[in-house]
């Protein structure tokens, strides 16, 4: 069966991946907290659900934020959100979703939550997951603070944060830049890189380095309107 990529909708990332994350394969997105793994996963979810397909999010850390997902353009009604209580349950849930043969994307979020303890995944789990994903139309994407699947991963992307943008007076978080490295790719060339600038919801669509005082004013107003009952502290 020809491998069809599941695009993220981000041109630079899709070019780097050769079209997107492959369906029927195991892919990894690795990066420490704050490096942009969640933003990339939400972009992938948004593009998948916008095409009318279903996606599943397995979230043992209970870290999925529906408000962020909605701001990223995810069609929440097309996302199956399951919060297993442990790693073992999460892996079994993943196998059930893969055998359902109806989900175009399965995101298995194994990055730590409040406990800040990285899960210890048994080595035997990865070949099993890879075999479950093979032959399905589901792109299996695993999020983690570091690469977990090792040689079982068909695609591995590592993220590192390059710069954070705060607009001054008063300080305002405007966005963050991330560098993505394709460190493993069984389907094509590896060792490729891409840059993505993530912006806060409500910020202008213009590149961050072109932010002007007028842009900041607009951005601040838009962001303030997007927040629930904002109120400036006395």
């Amino acid at each position, binding site marked *: 069966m020809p491998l069809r990529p599941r695009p*993220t*909708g*981000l*041109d630079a990332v899709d070019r780097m991946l050769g079209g997107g994350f492959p369906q029927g394969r195991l892919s990894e997105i690795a990066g420490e*907290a*704050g490096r*942009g793994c*969640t*933003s990339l*996963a939400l*972009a992938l979810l*948004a*593009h998948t*659900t*916008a*095409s*009318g*397909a279903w996606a599943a999010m397995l979230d043992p850390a209970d*870290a*999925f*934020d*529906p*408000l*962020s*997902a909605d*701001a990223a353009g995810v069609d*929440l*009604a*097309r*996302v*199956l*959100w*399951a*919060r297993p*209580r442990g790693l073992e349950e999460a892996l*079994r*849930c993943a196998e*059930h*979703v893969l*055998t*359902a043969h*109806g*989900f175009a994307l399965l995101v298995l979020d194994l990055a730590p*939550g*409040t406990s*800040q303890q990285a899960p210890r995944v048994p080595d035997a789990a990865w070949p099993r997951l890879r075999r479950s994903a093979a032959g399905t139309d589901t792109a299996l994407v695993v999020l983690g603070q570091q690469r977990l699947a090792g040689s079982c991963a068909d695609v591995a992307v590592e993220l590192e944060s390059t710069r*954070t943008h*705060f607009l001054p007076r*008063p*300080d*305002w*978080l405007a966005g*963050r830049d991330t560098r993505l490295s394709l460190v493993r790719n069984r389907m094509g060339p590896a060792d490729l890189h891409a840059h993505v600038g*993530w*912006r*806060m*919801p409500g910020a202008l669509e213009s590149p961050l380095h072109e932010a002007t005082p007028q842009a900041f004013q607009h951005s601040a107003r838009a962001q303030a309107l997007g927040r*629930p009952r904002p*109120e400036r*502290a006395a």
Partner: protein
Amino acid sequence: MPASTPPRIACLLVPDLPLAAALRAHPELGGQPLAITSDRGPRAEILAVSPEAAQAGVRPQQGLAHARTLCAELCVQRASPALERAARNALLDAAFSTSPRAVLAPPGSGLLAAEAAAFVDARGVGRLFHSERGFAGALCERAAHLGLPAVVSIASARTVARIAARTLIAAGSSGATGTTRVLPPGSETDFLPPLPLDLLDPEDRLASDLARFGLHRVGDLLRIPERGLVTRFGHRILPLLALARGEDRSPPPPAPSKTLLEEALDLERPIQTLEPLLFVLRGALARLRARLALRRLAAAQLEIELGLSGGGRDARRVAASAPTLEPRIWLRLVSLSLESRPPPAAIERVRLAVEARPPRGDQLDFFRPAGAPPAALDRTLAELTALCGEGRVGAPALADDPRPDAHALAPFRPQPSRRDGSSPPRTRLAVRALRPPLPAQVLAPHGSPEAVRSALGGGCVLHCAGPWRTTGRWWSQDERFAFDHFDVQTEDGLVFRLRRNHVARRWEIDGVYD
């Protein structure tokens, strides 16, 4: 079915219900000498015996002590009204799986008290099952699939069909189960007269009066004018006469719109721990599943009623996120419920009930990718719910709640979307939520954080935006909240959402920009 169609009624008959109910609940006892007794103890009376026990000389109405002298390997089960009720309802399920009209027959009396029967509307079934004999065979197979060995006969009246089924049993003893008989329309007048009157199940006193008058066959009764019979036996003879004439030709009523399936059993000994209880429940759930599958139904909610020692009762309800048939899923949900709220006393009785409904259908979209088939999706949702627990599987939704960390979960029922998939890509900086929030130590001598320490990391604050104050529910002591939110970047590179919780008087990190 037009009203002018001549009536054809099938009778599905189980000759020995107490035995069949016991073997249905304990299939491991099949092939062994088994006796069903009225009570515990050596003086208990035997109500029914398996063919293996009968071969050893054990007979109904013997005492248990006597029976044990005849057969040392005799297995004994106490008669359970709950099991028999469930078996009778399972018989009706087998009937409804072949025809939309069926009803349980009134229970017999005397020697026929142990039988259970259901009448099934058999009009027009020849088109579905090729012939009435094929229909009768299918009915037998479905009853056997539910663990109920039965015989089937088809005639133009209920009584005639039931008597024809009884003649099958009488001819072949208990080895006759699985056999069928079809009486062609009009042949009832030749079929009934030679049969003994006992097959009409007259009441005891009337039966002895009839015998005293030398009336032993149905034909003897039919030869005497009705007026003469009433003069000699009174009006109590009229119902028997109607049966002998085969006058009850009304078709059975249609199936009720609401289908409630129950399985119940009385335990031999009280159960105090979870594992043996789950073992018992597994069997009951498997029997429920077989009944649901036979009727092509599913259930989304399971009611459990546990009869406790001392007369108490523990009722609970577990729900799967979608209708399912899998006993494994139900067992997992029941196990989670029992672990979270154990019953307060030992368990003596168990009753399971489900409201069955047809599996969900789905309308496919011409222009969108097809998702999982409804049945597969329902099974997956139920599996995930069993693994994750109730309220942890569904579609995320935005909550109508002013709390900054509020979120909601809706049932996962994706509908055709109006989105055309051509929206411009959004490179949004997402928040990775921390639930519950992570406590933090914050140095804020002038109100704004200047240094942060937490399990996540920390250090001196390089950039800080905020605060944004969110307050609400001030009228409720338990639900009120007041937060000052800051977007903070520390020297280790982390950017996170820090908040001052004014109600709890502490600093917390409730999300990381990731």
